[in-house]
């Protein structure tokens, strides 16, 4: 099978030759463009952004390509200050929302300018080059994540209780921002769209609060519908410790659901448990190798972790009578760090090719 045939089989739980794999290697791919490309350059230049994904595909031989830049793109274009280290993930170090009135003042920026413009054009470029080889997807922050990046998560969570109308005003702007981004991504040719709906997380919000501030029809519901109406395979990524699986899988009905696993957090669901509870009946699950292994583990260690995960997943799929509904991935982004071991990313892909082979149960 080629990558697209295998991915299509996994999306529909058809028979596939092996499990699919996509360690979420995005910014780290820039290392394949030479020593001189910094993160700051990569995330400001659509051609470099796209070239890195193309180089990553050639080197690692993934089953998907997902255009994650970082989580400060929208906040930065709204006016928040973003700290841009040469070799680390950029992050907001000065918020744009500093009092209640500021929520109302947020305005959707020109999405063709700034880093949103880089993200859209970069996604178009890598999709153009990779579309015949793998399923490509754009990546976008959900409205609550974009708001917490702009205002600070602690402030937003407190304001949800003390000043909910201000938070809703901010979320309405973020949702409109997302609407414009989805429409722009629909012109890139990418068949998939991945949402980061991080705050659907029981460590932070209960079902009622999540429904009010993201999961309901005004925000995520509207955006998910728009994505589907525009023909995207609508996908969700959530690297939190205790994700709202019922809402984000059963209600949102994504094509792919990407999640992490925190063995030290009680009730954090493992791959096997998630399949066992029926979530792989609903969509293609993806996870959950600990990102730290891409920096700190030996190649031998990460190979063993990958082989063990393949075995766990295959056993659980068999028990549920499923074929191929799991993608060996990394739960969170592979750290885009100068010391990240490219050989460990390659090891995950290569071990999945061997240990993820599917056959009779």
């Amino acid at each position, binding site marked *: 099978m080629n990558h697209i045939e295998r991915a299509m089989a996994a999306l529909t739980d058809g028979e596939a030759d092996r499990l699919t794999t996509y360690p979420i290697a995005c910014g780290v791919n820039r290392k394949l463009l030479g020593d001189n490309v910094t993160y700051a350059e990569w995330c400001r230049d659509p051609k470099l952004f796209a070239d890195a994904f193309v180089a990553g595909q050639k080197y690692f031989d993934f089953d998907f390509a997902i255009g994650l830049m970082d989580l400060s793109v929208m906040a930065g274009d709204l006016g928040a200050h973003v700290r841009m280290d040469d070799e680390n*993930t950029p992050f907001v170090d000065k918020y744009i929302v500093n009092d209640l009135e500021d929520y109302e003042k947020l305005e959707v920026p020109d999405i063709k300018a700034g880093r949103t413009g880089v993200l859209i054009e970069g996604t178009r470029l890598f999709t153009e080059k990779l579309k015949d080889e793998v399923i490509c997807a754009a990546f976008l922050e959900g409205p609550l994540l974009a708001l917490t990046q702009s205002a600070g998560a602690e402030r937003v969570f407190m304001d949800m209780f003390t000043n909910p109308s201000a938070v809703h005003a901010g979320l309405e702007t973020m949702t409109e921002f997302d609407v414009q981004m989805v429409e722009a991504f629909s012109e890139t040719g990418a068949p998939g769209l991945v949402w980061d709906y991080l705050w659907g997380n029981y*460590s932070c919000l209960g079902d009622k609060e999540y429904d009010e501030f993201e999961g309901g029809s005004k925000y995520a519901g509207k955006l998910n519908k728009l994505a589907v109406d525009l023909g995207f395979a609508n996908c969700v990524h959530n690297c939190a410790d205790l994700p709202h699986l019922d809402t984000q899988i059963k209600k949102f009905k994504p094509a792919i659901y990407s999640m992490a696993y925190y063995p030290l957090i009680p009730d954090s669901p493992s791959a096997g448990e998630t399949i066992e509870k029926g979530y792989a009946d609903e969509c293609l699950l993806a996870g959950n190798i600990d990102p730290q292994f891409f920096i*700190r583990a030996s190649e031998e260690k990460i190979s063993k972790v990958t082989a063990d995960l393949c075995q766990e997943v295959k056993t659980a799929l068999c028990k549920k009578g499923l074929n191929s509904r799991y993608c060996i991935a990394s739960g969170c982004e592979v750290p885009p760090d100068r*010391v990240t071991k490219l050989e460990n990313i390659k090891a995950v892909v290569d071990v999945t090719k061997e240990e993820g082979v599917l056959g009779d149960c």
Partner: protein
Amino acid sequence: MKVSQIAGFLGSGKTTALMKIGEGLVKKGCRIAIVVNDVGEISIDSKFVEANGLEAREIAGGCICCQIAGSFAETLVKLHEGFNPEIVIVEPSGVAIPWGLKRAAEYSEAKSDMSIEHAPVITLVDATRIDMLMKAVRRLVETQIREADVCFVNKVDAAKAEDIAKTEELIRNINPRAEIAHLSSVTMEGMDLIYDIIVNRISPRYDDAVEEELLRKEYDKRG
């Protein structure tokens, strides 16, 4: 290098306590760096830092361990290579997961010739606002208490006795294994205990704890 996390929700008195703790440990002869959340309660006073022989850095108030992991690890490397502190006291964002911060700290070992150990995770719980916090951000407060090795009921100088008792009970219900103590940055109650915890006690490393937990689960599965 030892990393000591002092967690707590926004307004819990973390930054003030952290400055006092840093100052006190320097007076006891320790080489201390402090890493504060740059969108936290108060800014670092550079004159205070200089006058007290501390070294200070800021990290993003980022919500997500994977987002800030790289920059936090880089901060530790720079501290190690420059100031070389014995102990780094960190004020994470109120939505950070302590295990995630431990994991991020251990990343730094791959970037420099250093080894990381952890002091017990300390969570400060503001007794003066406990009812409001439990109404507004209950899950976040519970998460921070659940992840703590030691919980300090903070601002005991200003809190009513019944609120202190209620806070203690809450902590016991959420995390029965956590040690509970009182703290005041005004009267300095509890400071000697905090110094002792940070300097003399150790909390498990992330990588060791994960290995142990995965092995335990494997044994459980095999019966």
